[in-house]
């Protein structure tokens, strides 16, 4: 029976529901604004349970206060006569809650089946979660360069999710969806929204509207920073955006590569590496280039003190030049661990191409032209995104 229900998506989820169905549910005392097609269903079930709860809360607490006042002990009265049982009453308060519970279960069950049944025509986006970032990859092979999730409006979207390390969970409050991302298996999550987030391409971030994408399963130090924004785009804009993701670095000329691409790529590094010398989960980038190229700090310890930067990098050594060392540290992070940090960095093999690594190296070489948050503050004007 479950199987049959699983194969029958509700009418609100089909492709013919485009743009017309399911208005956004407004924010209220309890719930935030709902933006997905099943938000109304979830909100209805929530409100149904809530009103039952208000009723019983007022009933129980109201009677409790009333009795406590009306039947106060008089003097030192040690014995009060009251009924010891009442069969009809007891049956009543067993049966009525049972019936209400069946309704609650039913609304939850119906909504849940819709929630877990992606339509056949869903647009698939692959999500790889790792400590502590979400990486979105689109059917064209392009990845979302700024780590945020861009989706087309009015179209069912299915996330196929996997984890590189520990449990994570994808949670979108505005869409009323959540699912754990379990290492060793694929998990799926789907949703559809019929409303564009306004100002998504506004250059002023304050004018951008977006939905939150949280990690909801505890995953360690950076758990609370494991976050993405969701932008909902009109289909045409989405197509343009997607095309750009595949080749956005190709158009950058000369120094623009590290000036423009560097800060965007650094967003993924920032949860562990600082630019101002403060220690994070990994070493700060400040002074890194000097250390790697034989300057100040090049006697810093690597590999539990067995190696230093100087002993590894230089003509005739393992790494001919600092660029090779940085490149290897991004692709094979466990090779040479900087003392006293742990072996926790995931590999970026397959996620960063040569151009991206060039941009990161360029940024490291010119760190004085960036502020502590990775914003480019060098004088030269930069071409638009």
């Amino acid at each position, binding site marked *: 029976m479950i199987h049959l229900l699983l194969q029958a998506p509700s009418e609100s989820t089909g492709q013919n529901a485009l743009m017309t169905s399911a208005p956004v549910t407004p924010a209220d005392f309890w719930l935030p604004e709902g933006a997905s097609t099943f938000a109304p269903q979830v909100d209805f079930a929530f409100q149904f349970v809530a009103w039952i709860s208000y009723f019983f809360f007022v009933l129980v607490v109201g009677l409790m206060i009333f009795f406590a006042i009306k039947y106060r002990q008089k003097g030192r009265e040690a014995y009060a006569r009251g009924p010891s049982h009442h069969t009809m009453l007891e049956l009543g308060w067993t049966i009525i809650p049972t019936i209400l519970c069946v309704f609650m*279960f039913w609304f*939850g069950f119906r909504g849940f089946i819709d929630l877990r049944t992606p339509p056949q025509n869903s647009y698939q986006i692959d999500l790889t979660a790792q400590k502590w970032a979400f990486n979105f990859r689109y059917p064209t092979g392009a990845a979302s360069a700024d780590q945020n999730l861009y989706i087309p409006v009015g179209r069912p979207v299915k996330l196929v999710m996997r984890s590189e390390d520990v449990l994570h969970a994808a949670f979108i409050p505005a869409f009323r969806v959540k699912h754990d991302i379990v290492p060793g298996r694929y998990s799926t999550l789907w949703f559809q929204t019929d409303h564009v987030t306004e100002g998504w391409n506004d250059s002023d971030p304050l004018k951008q509207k977006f939905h939150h994408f949280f990690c909801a399963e505890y995953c360690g130090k950076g758990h609370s920073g494991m976050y993405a924004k969701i932008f909902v785009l009109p289909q045409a804009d989405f197509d343009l955006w997607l095309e750009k993701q595949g080749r956005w670095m190709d158009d950058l000329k000369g120094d623009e590569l590290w000036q423009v691409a560097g800060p965007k790529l650094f967003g993924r590094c920032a949860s562990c590496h600082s630019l101002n010398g403060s220690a994070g989960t990994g070493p700060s980038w400040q002074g890194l280039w000097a250390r790697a190229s034989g300057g100040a700090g090049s006697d810093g310890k690597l590999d539990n003190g067995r190696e230093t930067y100087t002993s590894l990098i230089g003509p005739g050594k393992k790494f001919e030049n600092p660029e090779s060392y940085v490149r290897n540290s991004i692709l094979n992070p466990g090779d040479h661990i900087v003392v006293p940090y742990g072996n926790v960095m995931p590999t970026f093999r397959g996620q960063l191409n040569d151009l991206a690594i060039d941009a990161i190296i360029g940024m490291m070489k010119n760190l004085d032209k960036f502020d502590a948050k990775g914003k480019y503050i060098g004088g030269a004007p930069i071409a638009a995104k």
Partner: protein
Amino acid sequence: MTTSSHTGHAQSTDNYLTFTRGIKSWMFTLDHKRIGVMYLVSVLASFFVGGLFALIVRTKLLTPGEVSWIDADQYNQAFTLHGAIMVFLVIIPSIPGALGNFVLPIMLGAKDVAFPRLNLFSYYLWVTGAFLSVYALLAGGFDTGWTFYTPYSTTTETAGVIPVVMGVFVLGFSSIFTGLNFVVTIHKLRPPGMTWFRMPLLLWALYATALIQVLATPVLGITLLLLIIERAFGIGIFDPGMGGDPVLFQHFFWFYSHPAVYIMILPGMGIISEIIAVHSHRQIFGYKYVAFSSIAIAIFSFLVWGHHMFTSGQSELMNVVFSFITFSVAIPSAIKVFNWLATLYKGAIVLNTAMLYGLAFMFLFTIGGLTGLPLGTLNVDIHLHDTYFVVAHFHYVMMGSALIAMVGGIHHWWPKMFGVMFSEFWGRIGCTLVFVGFNVTFFTQFMLGSQGMPRRYYMYQPEFQTYHVISTMGAYCMALGFFVTAAYLLHSLFFGKKAPANPWGGRSLEWQCTSPPPHDNFSTTPSVGNPYDFSDVRWNEAEQGYEIDPNAVPSKDTH
């Protein structure tokens, strides 16, 4: 025969506190009352430490961003310690270990539990578990969350994971032995006349609890051993990299930890049944319904663990089945609340400190229970899972209900345990501060959660700050309430008025021996009647306490 014991003149130096002297007489005691008192002191000390960690967590959450005095790693350790201490060292052993040990044999009319040596051993296992936890803290701490979810717990770099898991393993056996002791005591040591349906409802609740302790806790033990084996020896059980399955750990863990929720709340419900009936001076309403609902809860508790895993990736069919069964637990819980409510009807209600805690429990448990309903409703739970809504819900049940019942029980039996009366004036102030503080702290967290604030977050979106600030202020208020409570209780130990044998007018057997009870509880086998038939209880002005009129005609009240 019972009259001689509550005349007050009989109160000599020969009570369990003064029966023998010296530190050794406590350390090696087999007296259930002394073991209960030792549990009480230990549990309250742990509660203080766990509370400090809660205040650290709440203080950090005043601001959404990073703060200089605590970093993300330290914050993660703080909430992990708060959870682990409160669950394993405080709430699970609190009522059975401290109050249960003290009152269960006396209520039953027995001289001690069935296995006094095993009882002392349980206590020392608790102490061992506590020391292992402290060692884990000193060895490098642990940041796994109290749930120890794999593969995070098998891969995190904090060095204290194995010691604390060993500690919880040992604490589990402390719990099992206590449960075993109670089951055998209730089956075998009932005096003549003490039939099952003459047992006070606290004993039914402790019996149901003991069944869960004995049957569910071994599963936790096995799970924790498997976790240690994987972490220490790299044998793949839960880690998918080694062919394991992390969801399997969640099944094992919740197969214990859901019943454990009822290990925490059932004894609290038992205490509330006593408090409500005694301080209303009236027959409990629907005795058999309340008694059987305890057993029903114990049975259902084994069948609903999957509702902790609606988003985990277990099959949709299992989610649906677990959701359905979960709602069935709501029914016996609701029955209990309605029966307590009906007990108030036409009572003679005294709003003293113990009763205020009893009414606070009803208020808080109603909210805790009702907010369980949206979490059992499948599609709503998907939204609320792993948010502050869940945090608020289980604090209403585990703290607002289980711990508040514990505090209420401490006040109810304080005169019996230590032979002194505490200040009712300060008692009511303390209760009010705790009650108001608790609601301010945790009701705001329902809003935080339903609006999408995930739990276990060091930093958060600025839009949530107002609620977090209010919640933290509530926590400070609650802390103040507990300090007031600690102060007047300690004060009463030294300066409190001498307590009569029966200060509240209770009818169960513990009120028929002196306060504090003698070493052997009863000099002669007590006569057993209906524990809720108050018809022969009288006020004795000279003693400022109640007594049982031996000439009273037994009431026709039956169950």
